[in-house]
């Protein structure tokens, strides 16, 4: 059976992608997924060669034919997203695709049309297949695009007999995050020992608990604030969550990124060996 691991953090910039890319470099029989679809960065480190793509249609969008419109105001009255002005002018960028306006329009002046909201890609990389995506600027339904890349990854894993899917998750706690973690076997929460990092990771751990997904924690940049690092460890102990590693604040992460390499390829230093230790623990827990 294919196992799935998602790396998340709540707060952005904690090192999710750098750590995930290193895992991808060490895993042996896996598919990598970049689920941070509205700011995907994994491809920068993995240098993918796109071999397949699929257009992603998000929600439909309202289109209004002003020649047919009789200005009855029903669209304005019924739209809950402010997509119509009181004079019935349509602002398509505010449309959430619910199709209520199309239904209530008595003269058929509004129709819902498909829109291309993004694109999903299957690529080859030096660490095996990568499934990634690009959401067009300002599009809705990013959670659906995450679901699409995860589905593609599962299909690919089954086709090619892979035993693991490694998913780089997005920041936050909303639809893309929920879509990235539902049904996975393990979540790794990367926490930086800042008050913001602690605040957001507590929220993301609650989300994982809500969806009953087991999680482990890794503290990144642990020497930025030792007191906060201890607080995280205490919190995890109370919650019964294993801390699988403590990584130092180290400019190797940036240097590796500048060189477009993963940390474990770029260096053999403390940060690199710390990530290797974490990977061994996670691999053991998963496979």
């Amino acid at each position, binding site marked *: 059976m294919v196992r799935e691991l998602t790396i998340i953090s*709540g*707060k*952005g*910039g*904690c090192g999710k*992608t750098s750590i995930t890319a290193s895992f991808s470099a060490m895993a042996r029989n896996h598919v990598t997924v970049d689920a*941070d*679809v*509205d*700011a995907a*960065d994994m491809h*920068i480190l993995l240098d993918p060669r796109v071999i397949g793509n699929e257009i992603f249609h998000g*929600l439909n969008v309202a289109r209004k034919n002003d020649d047919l419109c009789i200005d009855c105001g029903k669209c304005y009255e*019924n739209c*809950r*997203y*402010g997509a119509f002005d009181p004079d019935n002018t349509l602002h398509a*960028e505010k449309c*959430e*695709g*619910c*199709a*209520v306006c199309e*239904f*209530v329009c008595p003269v058929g002046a509004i129709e819902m049309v498909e829109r291309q909201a993004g694109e999903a890609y299957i690529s080859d990389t030096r660490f095996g297949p990568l499934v990634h995506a690009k*959401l067009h*600027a*300002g*599009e*809705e339904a990013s*959670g659906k695009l995450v679901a699409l890349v995860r589905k593609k990854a599962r299909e690919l894993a089954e086709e090619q007999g892979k035993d693991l899917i490694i998913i780089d998750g*997005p*920041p*936050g*706690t*909303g*639809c*893309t995050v*929920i879509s990235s973690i539902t049904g996975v076997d393990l979540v790794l929460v990367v926490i*930086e*020992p*800042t*008050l*913001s*990092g602690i*605040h*957001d990771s507590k*929220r993301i751990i609650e*989300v994982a608990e*809500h*969806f009953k997904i087991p999680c482990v924690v890794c503290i990144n940049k642990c020497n*930025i*604030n030792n007191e*906060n690092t201890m607080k995280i460890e205490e919190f995890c102990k109370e919650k019964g969550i294993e801390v699988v590693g403590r990584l130092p*604040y180290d*400019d190797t992460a*940036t240097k590796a*990124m*500048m060189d*477009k390499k993963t940390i474990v390829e770029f260096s053999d230093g403390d940060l690199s060996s710390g990530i290797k230790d974490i990977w061994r623990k996670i691999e053991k827990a998963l496979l």
Partner: protein
Amino acid sequence: MRSGAKELVRVTGITIITDRGMDVKIAVASGKGGTGKTTVAVNLALSIEDSVLIDCDVEGPNSHIFFPGPMRKLKDVFIPAPEFNLDKCTYCGKCADFCQYNAISVIGKKLLFFEELCHGCGGCKIICPVDAISEREHHIGMIRHNDDRTLHDGLLDISEPFGVPIIKELKELAMDKGVTIFDSPPGTACPAVETMRDVDYCILVTEPTPFGLHDLNLTVDVAREIGVPFGVVINRDGIGDDSVEKYCVKEGIPLLAKIPNDIEIAKAYSRGTPVVKARPEYSNIFMDIIDMIGGMI
């Protein structure tokens, strides 16, 4: 520090926008998370007299960490959700067919409602031929404020997917007079766009790395599509290279400021101390940002 003056002034007393009674809305955004949006937003708010900060990152609001005192609930935020009267329901399935979000499923004599997929559009209620659907309020989060109301933020309930309705309500709290700063969520999808929409200026915070540049590029696309004027702040200047600066020059994007990569800033951040308090020598960076934006709005 709050004077009764109606014009917008810096704490040093130099007026940046002289039109009395004018309101200015500034969003601080970035595609990549953790680039320093909150740092810029908080320190700007602390540097501008009579300003209000509204933290729109409802999935992970962090601005309050840098303000003293507790946050108090201003109001709860609800979206409408359908309530099904199964005595009236004929299981015709029209609501399920209509729902664009696949939040309703009717199989035989069974109706399933997936609350987390519902956007509260009210379509099912309109479409139901036997009037079996009414609406109730579904709690998705709350709006909070600090004691002197210089800071507002929103908090999306755990396991709720859509924060945009909270962001919409937050944005209505912008001041009629004075400067309102919005701290945006990361990314380029709907929550970030909602925050950046209808503001007078957008500050895009990035870091001088390949990730920073790539995500800046995406955010620039969003800002251009919305049609809001914008400029760039480079945070942790010195960690990477000059490709972000070169990009800004090539694209004709104003570079508002560079915040140096200083471990002391990171440590102050980790404790929840604003840069302008921990390292007053960096205050001029935020003054310069205000000056540059003042000249552009």
